């Protein structure tokens, strides 16, 4: 009893002071380097075996995932705030609640693999390598944004991340195409093609499934099922809500999308499946979004507040990771709180930049329509105002 008290006291002290001497003392009895966790078994379709049911998490990885998820969460909440203050205009689709999906997916693939998704993309933009600063200033439409302020919320891109697509389902065939390029180049890369439960009913997704299966493309089709396609629940939109089976002739697995480790293991499994040349695979991530579909949707007219609060209380991805790490002594609460504070500061700085940066110059209205053609004059509103186009 006294030993536990002493341990608790020294843990608190170490969290506060962080002197090297006490850290050595503390490391031996309070921090573990690794821990093993069980994962919920995935439902399988046309697969003999699935991802492992236990996984090992190192302290380093755990802290990294925690930081990334917390950054995505705070970034989305900051975007919410900026939208209400009218710094961000237009459409803004937030993914808070779905952090485990983007962080878990990134953890399961290599930076050289490719990802394409729909418009609920801010989280994936961050995990794929964009800084919070460039994301927020793209949202506010400034020069410092990743698409130079011309794209906005739905059109953010970075190397090996193809956006950010506004038209629902249009990214399916694009992802299959990227996978074809990977296969053609023979570099063992895969393409993660994400779409939502609403898009799963688009014809283009079925076309992409067929092409990928026919030519055995290394494409992982991932359906982020957050139970609502805008305001329509999955039961009212789909004849079959088993989205992992909707690939029909494609193997599939259903994953708990609120558990970052589960998503990581499933992604590794799926990516390995594709890399070995067996063809495409479908993955369904069961997740939830706290915000409405977009900023103009309060999110409670088609679901109850209790439902949202329930999910927040029981299956919040950040909370789940935090509990696991603290209970298995991979980290202390104070450490995680420190990460929270650092993340908050990073977001504040980024928001400050995003709201004070200059907007793109008007000449850019005509830029980047075509490539390599000699600059022509972009005609428009009247014959006397023209913009020069630059490739």
């Amino acid at each position, binding site marked *: 009893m006294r030993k536990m008290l002493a341990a608790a006291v020294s843990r608190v002290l170490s969290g506060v002071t962080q002197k090297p001497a006490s850290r050595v003392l503390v490391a031996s009895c309070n921090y573990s380097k690794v821990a093993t966790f069980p994962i919920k078994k995935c439902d399988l379709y046309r697969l003999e075996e699935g991802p492992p049911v236990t996984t090992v998490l190192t302290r380093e990885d755990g802290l990294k995932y925690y930081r990334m998820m917390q950054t995505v969460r705070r970034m989305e909440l900051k975007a919410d705030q900026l939208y209400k203050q009218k710094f961000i205009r237009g459409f803004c689709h937030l993914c808070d609640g779905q952090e485990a999906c983007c962080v878990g997916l990134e953890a399961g693939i290599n930076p050289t693999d490719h990802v394409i998704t729909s418009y609920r993309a801010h989280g994936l933009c961050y995990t794929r390598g964009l800084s919070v600063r460039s994301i927020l200033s793209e949202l506010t439409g400034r020069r410092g944004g990743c698409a130079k302020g*011309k794209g906005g919320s739905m059109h953010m891109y970075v190397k090996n991340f193809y956006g950010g697509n506004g*038209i629902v*389902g249009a990214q399916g065939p694009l992802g299959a195409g990227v996978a074809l390029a990977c296969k053609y180049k023979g570099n063992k890369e895969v393409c993660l093609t994400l779409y939502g439960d609403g*898009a799963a009913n688009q014809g283009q997704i079925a076309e992409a499934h067929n092409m990928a299966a026919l030519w055995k493309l290394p494409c992982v089709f991932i359906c982020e099922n957050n139970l609502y396609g805008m305001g329509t629940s999955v039961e009212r939109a789909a004849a079959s809500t088993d989205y992992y089976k909707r690939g029909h002739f494609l193997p599939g697995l259903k994953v708990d999308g609120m558990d970052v480790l589960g998503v990581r293991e499933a992604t590794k499994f799926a990516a390995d499946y594709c890399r070995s040349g067996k063809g495409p695979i479908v993955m369904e991530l069961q997740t939830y979004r706290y915000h409405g579909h977009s900023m103009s949707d309060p999110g409670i007219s088609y679901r109850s507040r209790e439902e949202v609060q329930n999910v927040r209380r029981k299956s919040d991805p950040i909370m789940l990771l935090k509990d696991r790490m603290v209970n298995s002594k991979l980290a202390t609460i104070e450490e995680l709180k420190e990460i929270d504070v650092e993340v908050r500061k990073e977001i504040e700085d980024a928001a400050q930049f995003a709201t004070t940066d200059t*907007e793109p110059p008007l000449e850019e209205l*005509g830029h980047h329509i075509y490539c390599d053609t000699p600059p022509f004059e972009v*005609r*428009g*509103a*009247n014959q006397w105002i023209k913009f020069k186009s630059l490739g």
Partner: protein
Amino acid sequence: MGPPLGSNQCRSLIGAPPCLPAVCGSVARNPGLQVGMAAFVATAGRLLGLRAAGTEGRWRRLRGAGLRRALLQPASATGDAAQRRQVAHFTFQPDPEPREYGQTQKMNLFQAITSALDNSLAKDPTAVIFGEDVAFGGVFRCTVGLRDKYGKDRVFNTPLCEQGIVGFGIGIAVTGATAIAEIQFADYIFPAFDQIVNEAAKYRYRSGDLFNCGSLTIRAPWGCVGHGALYHSQSPEAFFAHCPGIKVVVPRSPFQAKGLLLSCIEDKNPCIFFEPKILYRAAVEQVPVEPYNIPLSQAEVIQEGSDVTLVAWGTQVHVIREVASMAQEKLGVSCEVIDLKTILPWDMDTVCKSVIKTGRLLISHEAPLTGGFASEISSTVQEECFLNLEAPISRVCGYDTPFPHIFEPFYIPDKWKCYDALRKMINY
């Protein structure tokens, strides 16, 4: 009431003038005057021309400090660049109350659409309405109450599949039932483009009049809305104008919308009805409660004139109406304003007769210039009325770029661009 407007906040609100902070201070002690004070300060700010970058920076910091928006709303009409965009580029001009169709009611555009759909479903027992989210009333409230009134087998949701929606609608129409399909935004109509152009438009022709899908009507919100960016602002009427076999209609007001929509539904050809989304709430008029028809393919001369003809459709009609009054006031030029209404088949007679009278033509639309419908009108008019033209035909349209996100106010053909083009045409 929000937090009291402290005197130092007041100072940052308006900048230099020394007298006002004192006034502000005294007002701050009286909470009842808060909102009115904000309005006064705002007007004072505008009068003092405080649109300089310095004050803008202060505006922003003030907002970021989290003051209640209610306090700032009266001020929003003044200088700040980000907030200036809230002012629309047009002013809706309602038509006088129609007398010949019976009792009228004040309705905005989406209520007029609901009324038209209500009349259709009541009159025609085979009529069905379907699309994404139409059951609860639609994202623009155009179908509110219809499911409760007519039942869930007549007003129902479809999954997220535009191609499926239109193809399905064609099927319903071929059997003889009336199909009213909704595409949630005109920008999303492209997956259905093949069904519309290759199936719907050609059905009667290819079957030698044995089959047809004439009882199909497709409705879609259309046009710029201030914050729509690339995929919620497009005006795709030109793509469909190139397709014989369908009809394309764009109303300018609630009264026109109800009459034209009812005509489209009853027309024995597949029709696409584009509804200017920016007018859904902004346009309010007296609209008859009973059903009535406005004929398709007939343009309307809204205002008679003798010097220039101005042609537009949808929201842009209100812009050119304003341009016409500006021209009358500042240049003494008398303009004839025509609302084209039906894009395909379009009323060549009215436009050509007008151009023969005036000798000058200006056409304006939000869609990009190259290949926009203005080019078709322009080409036909120069064929028919060449010797009557006093100046080259002017087209004031959007730029040949995708519809921009942040550059929208510069992109759209607003009244100043139209006025400028008109002036140059007069002085040709």
